[in-house]
């Protein structure tokens, strides 16, 4: 049986931990709200862009852009891994990294060289520990405040790398925010761009009489301008999704920790009371025993 003092100090320390986890959960909740707002704000842009892109892809030639053309031989694969900068968010980073590892092993087994771009410290640290090749790292982006320029800057670098032949295929791994309890990791091919879904606007009965779009400059040129933007959009979207997921995961983890603290405090208080009661009983016994002896 632990001494009274020991139990007492344990209770104090658990209470302190609980304060921290509770605060972290609250911070995560408010950040989550912010992240969700920017995700919702981005949706109309992404949706409209996809619409326009779809209608152009229809008109442009299939070989309009080098970004659309798959390489005959894939020797160098690049993985853009999105993780959080900080831990204490349950299995969030572990899931993402595990996905990256699976993909990497699969590619390595085919004799393909794999390199990484890291968003987030956790993924970068993992790459470092494993001695993997890191081309570029971006910290303090995921989970924080960022705007579209981060996506366009990093996206441009990836595109340059693809065009110059440094990478033959580029994948992005991010957490897909499907709700508070569900943020599964997702692998998506960024480059070469998988076939674009052609929009079916033209097939709509109401619009069939409409003349074709006049397109300035030419469809091919416009497509060439839009495709890189499409990459930026996807990166931006992955960043938003991952940030939102990170906060959701942290909120859940911290809630669980707070609950665990409550349980522990309950058990410890019980132990403390028992110990105190035992001590009192012992003292009483001593006094009673002493009194009896004097009488005797």
């Amino acid at each position: 049986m632990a001494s009274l003092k020991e139990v007492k100090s344990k209770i104090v320390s658990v209470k302190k931990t609980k304060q921290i986890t509770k605060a972290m959960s609250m911070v995560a909740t408010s950040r989550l709200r912010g992240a969700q707002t920017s995700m919702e704000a981005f949706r109309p842009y992404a949706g409209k862009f996809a619409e326009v892109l779809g209608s152009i892809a229809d008109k442009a030639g299939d070989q309009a852009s080098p970004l659309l053309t798959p390489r005959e031989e894939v020797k160098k694969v690049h993985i853009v891994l999105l993780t959080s900068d900080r831990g204490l968010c349950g299995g969030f980073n572990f899931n993402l990294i595990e996905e990256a590892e699976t993909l990497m092993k699969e590619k390595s087994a085919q004799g393909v060289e794999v390199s990484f771009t890291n968003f987030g410290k956790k993924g970068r640290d993992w790459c470092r520990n494993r001695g993997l090749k890191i081309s570029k790292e971006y910290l303090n982006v995921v989970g924080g405040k960022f705007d579209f320029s981060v996506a366009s800057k990093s996206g441009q670098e990836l595109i340059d790398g693809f065009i110059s032949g440094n990478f033959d295929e580029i994948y992005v791994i991010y957490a897909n925010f499907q709700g508070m309890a569900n943020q599964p990791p997702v692998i998506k091919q960024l480059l070469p761009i998988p076939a674009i879904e052609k929009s079916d606007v033209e097939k709509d009965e109401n619009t069939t009489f409409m003349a074709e779009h006049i397109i300035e400059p030419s469809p091919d040129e416009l497509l060439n301008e839009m495709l890189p933007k499409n990459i930026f959009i996807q990166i931006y979207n992955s960043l938003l999704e991952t940030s939102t997921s990170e906060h959701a995961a942290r909120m859940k983890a911290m809630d669980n920790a707070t609950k665990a603290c409550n349980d522990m405090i309950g058990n410890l208080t019980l132990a403390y009371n028992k110990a105190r009661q035992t001590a009192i009983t012992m003292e009483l016994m001593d006094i009673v025993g002493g009194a009896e002896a004097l009488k005797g």
Partner: protein
Amino acid sequence: MAELLKLEVVTPAKYVVSEDVEIVMAPGTLGEFGVLSGHTPFLTSLKTGRILYKDANSKEKMLFVSGGFAEATPNRVTILAESAEKSIDIDVNRAKAALERAQKRLAEQKSENINFERAKSAMYRAIERIRIAETRGL
């Protein structure tokens, strides 16, 4: 009164404008163009510059826009831009600082350099922003 068309300006961060307007003037890559209701379907990329439109009360308004596309249909104009700001929202001091920075960088760079191109477009953006902000009140 002229028939109205719907103008929508969307950036990754937010809906900048969504209202019924009489006319929209936008800086297309191949030259500035105007759209009235009933325009033939039209799709173009945009230069950095200014979008001018008249709202339902014939009041003229201006927007700064950069890195965008415009799609016009008979009753709607959709503009997708990397950044777009209403003239009243433009931060002049920031634009002036950006202009200075860009000019300094241009002075130091060789013209083949990729940074030169970047600084140049940063300069254009700053100049346009300042120009629009100075004519604001419209």
